[in-house]
């Protein structure tokens, strides 16, 4: 979007200027205060910077439409993704007429329906984990950064948590709890929040001693309001980004957990389960892997890129 700029006009030649204008003009003090500064809105600039790249618009649209479709599909469709067919001829049907858009799997279940139900499950999982991780991470991180006294303790917790292999926690929890959605949420969040907290803490450290925070302290502003008014607003963009990036990450983890047998119960429809099931049959019925993979890739890639682009866009240095 190149802007055409008209060339600057040269100053008028004195002889072209009317003599009548050479009289004192009234002075408007208000006007002189008003003239200058450009309206710059952080959020408007962020959105504008974000929308500047065509690819991010495309991906944003994809991200939204896939997410919306995943949540809407179960409401409008009457295909049961778990409907097992007892007709052998329904099993493993390749995509095509009478077999659904993505074909059927080894028990005659409709892969198209399963893909969208699965996307919904995985997105929900990602979202819930992101909310937990980011919510807890934000809160603890803000506290960690702001309250000097707890730094040592938190750092030690960080060291310990990041060094207990996540699989240990996952496996243990799937014994203690029922394997399933919430187990994965708890297992992922129980260690996931700390890295976000760490990240937030570092951010908070850089803004904690900013002059406007000192100003607030001089005005006797309570800690709670300092955090909500002075710190958190600066972290909103980070939160959005972290949330967007946690979703592809959790989808990846879910696939991985399925691989090691600790994922969602296989009877539940999730992208991870679809992929792992499809992978087993890849040589025979490649569409059982490729169809959900394409959807998964679009979802994860769009979340990933949108998250990153948003992070870039939310950085005021990029507001050019």
């Amino acid at each position, binding site marked *: 979007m190149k802007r055409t700029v008209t060339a600057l006009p040269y100053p008028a030649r004195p002889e072209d200027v009317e003599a009548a204008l050479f009289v004192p003009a009234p002075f408007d003090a208000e006007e002189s205060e008003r003239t200058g500064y450009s309206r710059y809105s952080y959020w408007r600039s962020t959105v504008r910077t974000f929308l500047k790249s065509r690819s991010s618009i495309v991906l944003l649209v994809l991200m939204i439409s896939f997410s919306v479709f995943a949540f809407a599909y179960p409401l409008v469709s009457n295909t049961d993704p778990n409907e097992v067919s007892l007709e052998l001829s329904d099993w493993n049907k390749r995509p095509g007429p009478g077999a659904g858009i993505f074909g059927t799997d080894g028990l005659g279940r409709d892969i198209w329906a399963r893909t969208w139900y699965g996307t919904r499950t995985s997105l929900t999982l990602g979202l819930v984990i992101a909310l937990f991780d980011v919510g807890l991470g934000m809160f603890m991180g803000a506290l960690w950064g702001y309250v000097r006294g707890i730094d040592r303790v938190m750092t030690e917790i960080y060291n310990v948590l990041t060094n207990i292999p996540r699989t240990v926690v996952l496996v243990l929890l799937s014994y203690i709890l029922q394997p399933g959605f919430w187990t994965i949420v708890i297992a992922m969040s129980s260690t996931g929040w700390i890295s976000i907290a760490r990240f937030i803490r570092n951010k908070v450290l850089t803004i904690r001693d900013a002059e406007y925070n000192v100003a607030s302290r001089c005005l006797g502003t309570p800690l709670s309001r300092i955090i909500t008014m002075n710190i958190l607003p600066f972290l909103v963009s980070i939160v959005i980004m972290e949330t967007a990036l946690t979703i592809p990450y959790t989808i990846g983890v879910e696939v991985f957990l399925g*691989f090691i047998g*600790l994922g969602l119960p296989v009877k539940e429809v999730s992208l991870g389960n679809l992929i792992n099931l499809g992978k087993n049959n890849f040589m025979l019925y490649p569409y059982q892997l490729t169809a959900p993979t394409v959807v998964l*890739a679009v979802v994860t890639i769009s979340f990933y*890129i949108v998250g990153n682009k948003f992070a870039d866009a939310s950085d005021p240095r990029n507001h050019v």
Partner: protein
Amino acid sequence: MRAYILKRFGESLVTVFIVIFAVFMLMRFMPVEGYFTREDFTEMTAEARQVYLQSIGISGNPFGQFGRFLSGLAVGDWGRSITVYPKTPIASIIAEKAGYSLAFGLSAIGISIVFGLALGIAMAQNKDRLVDSLGTLYVVVVRAIPSLIYLFLIQIWVSGILGWPMVFYADVPVSWILPTVSMALPGIAWYAIWLRRFMVDEENKDYIKFAISKGLPRKKVMTGHVLRNAAVPLVQYLPTQILLTIAGSLIIESMYSIPGLGGLLVYAIRQQDNPLVQALVLLFSVLGIFGVFLGDILMVLIDPRIKLEGTSRTGDHV
């Protein structure tokens, strides 16, 4: 300097201790039934089960057990596996498997560094141009799509196209290539993306502008200033990465049948092989924590800005 190293070392030890203690106690929450296979349990009487638990050191006060575990460690005894490789000394299991993970891991790190840095430099130098977009595409694919999928496709397709074996054979050199490259893929993306970011950040620094204003050619500014400074923060993570290659890669090792340490921890937990789990967690947390420790020391050595307590302050005033 020495005081600093000692202090950091002490802190690392404490962290290792806490990690291992936490895991040790967590393992004690697992049901004792887990120590038996299905057949066993049917066959054994209650007493026999107790005998068995005692023989593998599971029953009794957990603190006492922990003490025994530590005193064993002190004399270099890692204990023996109980269910994964019954009665096999853990040290020998690890020794046997770590070699493979290390060999693959180190070659993968080597590849990641070389290609990752090259890609990162190329991307930073051609910011917002085709190379950058292609590099970004690569990074996005590798980081956004679950690795399982593309690793699997690589194994099936690439090995088919090139006619390479699908699994690793120690005596067939080409069979090393795919797993190593697969293992390097995320690393390449990691180095590329961070180096690119750090380089782009560096390029906006005042001292880079000053270097340019001194009239240094762009290439010299890039190598002598930008790259050099951008690489420094990456170096900090190198020890951890190298040390943790010993832990192996679960997916790749299992896909290519590499007898490394990769899947062992998961397997050991699921088999409730406590001594093995403890040993592995100990090993991995020691590697992780000391990796960080070494990274810190390394930073002190290469970054003159980081001043340590106990070192005399230089720097006079005008």
